């Protein structure tokens, strides 16, 4: 059974290779091949899952070792895989949602002449993502980590002819690289501390390592997580990443890749457990991002950017939960999965809307679409209810647990974190309602697109609606299923689990959650449901304007890194040319000048030559006598 693990990765990888090298002859069949291989991977995953369920909870982990990847004196990295419950969860999510989105893309990318390439990239992503979650050591994980980065780069910039897309792609990769620095440094520290970076031994030996080292490792891992999962301060790329085709946003920038950071932290649970300081920082980052994303989400008029903000904030929840330690890990993953469903669903819905509206993304130019695309409306609506935590739907369960755990952290921290999460819940409800109302309710505010074509909104083809429906089902049912099918027990052997002792009773937390949710919805309704929505965005409050600009975080980056960097390089180029090069050329010039001056002595007059000889002799004589004297 273990030997199937490699196949999980192999199938989509094969797809990528064939599609990218295959050439035009695959243009017509390519997307089917890609989808098929993704599905194949999913089937294998299900088989492995079944097998795993058959085993007792403690020895469910499977290993497969292919060969030694990098064998060097005192340094060994294996090409080896580890499939335990945590990985399994991800594998199912990735392959499952992945397959659905492949199917969706068949319809969505129908008119794109580079569709084959698109599916190649998608397969590549799935393969890399699986490698990431299946690796049995940090270096291999790093391999997958950068692999998904590449895939995301390629897919964000898929429409390369759009400068904005190309820039967004580059930005995403660069910001991620900053995070990757953290990961590689973390690996270095591990290597020097443990002499290895394989999960098993490292996590087993954390007890022996000094807390300082572990904290360092933890923080570096967190840096990596921030990069991938768009957490403050490395969140800036996610918004721009929406330049990519919508399925990409759904799969990579909502459901799977961006959650890799959470995986990394949960995977390194033992390290964080032994480094409370690092944990604290993690929770803080989570809390900050949670609010940050939520606020940004409130101000965006671009539907995808609004959703992106929401993604940021939801991942903030997960990171926060992961920072809480054993009381949070499980719920972080749980929310991750449910979020995978409803956020993917929301994005696909958004994509469907754009599909019907000439790729219009400005919600102020939507309105009253529920009649025109009912399926989209329903599925989107269910996703909406799920994310705001409407009782009974998946978001409700997972988020509620996190809030509970946040309070359970105890002490002032507990209170602060708890209230932050609650506040977050309220804002979530607010901006999601806003999106809902602006898109599907109110009067039509449609505008003709740049070539004067007025939009004719229509329902999307089956290939697109079916995945939406399936995801909607997921976003409705997943939470409840996990709640009662024992998700905690499932993951506990890997992540460990501890019951937090919340100062508030579970019931109280739940009520509070529902209450803030209602408040959020209500506020949004008052603002966007009752009053008509202006087509041109009002100037808005200072906060709103800041939020529209991602709370000026981008401007800061631009001012400091882009502008500063440009000046730095320019001046360095100058230095290199004038100083470093100048010294050498200067010396040459100096010798040349000296030569020119000495040359003048050779003035052609015999008598001056004789003088030099005479003088020379005098000097010779003097020197000889002097030598004797001394």
């Amino acid at each position, binding site marked *: 059974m273990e030997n199937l693990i490699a196949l999980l990765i192999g199938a989509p990888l094969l797809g990528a290779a064939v599609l990218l090298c295959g050439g035009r002859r695959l243009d017509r069949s390519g997307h089917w091949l890609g989808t098929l291989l993704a599905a194949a991977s999913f089937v294998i995953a299900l088989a492995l899952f079944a097998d795993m369920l058959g085993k007792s909870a403690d020895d469910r982990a499977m290993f497969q070792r292919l060969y030694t990847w990098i064998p060097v004196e005192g340094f060994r990295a294996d090409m080896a895989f580890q499939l335990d419950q945590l990985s399994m969860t991800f594998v199912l999510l990735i392959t499952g949602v992945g397959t659905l989105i492949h199917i969706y893309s068949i319809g969505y990318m129908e008119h794109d002449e580079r569709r084959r390439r698109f599916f190649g990239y998608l397969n590549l992503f799935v393969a890399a993502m699986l490698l990431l979650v299946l690796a049995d050591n940090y270096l291999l994980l790093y391999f997958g980590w950068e692999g998904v980065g590449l895939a995301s780069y390629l897919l964000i910039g898929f429409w390369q002819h759009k400068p904005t897309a190309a820039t967004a792609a580059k930005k995403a990769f660069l910001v991620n690289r900053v995070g990757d620095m953290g990961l590689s440094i973390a690996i270095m520290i591990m290597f020097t501390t443990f002499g290895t970076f394989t999960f098993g031994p490292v996590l087993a030996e954390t007890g022996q390592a000094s807390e300082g080292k572990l904290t360092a490792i933890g923080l570096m891992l967190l840096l990596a997580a921030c990069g991938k999962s768009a957490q403050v301060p490395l969140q800036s790329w996610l918004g721009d990443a929406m330049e990519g085709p919508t399925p990409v946003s759904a799969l990579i920038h909502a459901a799977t890749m961006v959650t890799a950071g959470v995986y990394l932290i949960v995977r390194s649970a033992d390290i964080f457990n032994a480094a409370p300081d690092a944990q604290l920082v993690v929770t803080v980052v989570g809390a900050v991002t949670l609010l940050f994303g939520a606020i940004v989400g409130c101000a965006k008029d671009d539907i995808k950017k609004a959703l992106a903000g929401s993604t940021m904030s939801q991942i903030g929840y997960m990171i926060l939960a992961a920072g809480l330690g054993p009381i949070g890990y499980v719920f972080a993953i749980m929310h991750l999965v449910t979020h995978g469903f409803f956020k993917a669903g929301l994005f696909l819905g958004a994509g469907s809307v754009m599909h019907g509206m000439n790729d219009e993304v400005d919600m102020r130019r939507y309105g009253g679409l529920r009649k025109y695309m009912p399926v989209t409306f329903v599925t989107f609506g269910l996703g909406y209810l799920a994310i705001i935590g409407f009782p009974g739907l998946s978001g409700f369960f997972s988020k509620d647990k996190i809030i509970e755990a946040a309070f359970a952290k105890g002490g002032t921290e507990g209170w602060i974190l708890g209230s932050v999460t609650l506040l977050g819940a309220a804002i979530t409800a607010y901006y999601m309602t806003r999106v809902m109302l602006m898109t599907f309710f109110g009067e039509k505010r449609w505008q003709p697109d740049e070539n004067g074509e007025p939009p004719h909104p229509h329902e999307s083809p089956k290939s697109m609606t079916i995945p939406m429906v399936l995801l909607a089902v997921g976003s409705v049912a997943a939470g409840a299923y996990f709640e009662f099918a024992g998700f905690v027990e499932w993951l506990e052997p890997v992540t460990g689990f501890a019951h937090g002792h919340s100062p508030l009773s579970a019931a109280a937390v739940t009520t509070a959650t529902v209450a803030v949710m209602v408040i959020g919805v209500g506020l949004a309704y008052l603002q966007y449901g009752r009053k008509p929505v202006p087509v041109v965005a009002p100037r808005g409050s200072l906060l709103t304007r800041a939020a529209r600009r991602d709370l000026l975080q981008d401007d800061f980056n631009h001012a400091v890194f882009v502008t500063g960097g440009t000046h730095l390089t320019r001046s360095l180029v100058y230095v290199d040319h004038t100083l470093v090069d100048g010294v050498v050329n200067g010396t040459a010039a100096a010798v040349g000048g000296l030569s020119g001056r000495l*040359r*003048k002595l*050779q*003035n*052609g*007059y*015999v*008598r001056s030559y*004789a*003088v030099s000889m*005479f003088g020379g002799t005098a000097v010779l004589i003097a020197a000889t006598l002097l030598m004797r004297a001394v």
Partner: protein
Amino acid sequence: MNPVNYLYLAALLFTIGAVGVLIRRNAIVVFMCVELMLNACNLAFVTFSRMHGNLDGQIIAFFTMVVAAAEVVVGLAIIVSVFRARHSASVDDASLMKL
């Protein structure tokens, strides 16, 4: 008298010759100054010969004269041909090649 004085004289003559080479323009005169230096050498040889009481120095003097004579032949030949070509015996005029 003390033969050393002849040495001083020789040195003096030699210096006069050398200085003459340095300051005179006319090739012939310059050349004569060189000859003067050679003869200063001769004087020195002869004097030392006397002091040492061996004849080497005197013999050498003869050789020097012969060599000097040969030099005169060659030198004059060159100088004269140059003079005929340029109608000037000034060594300063002969400065086509420089730098």
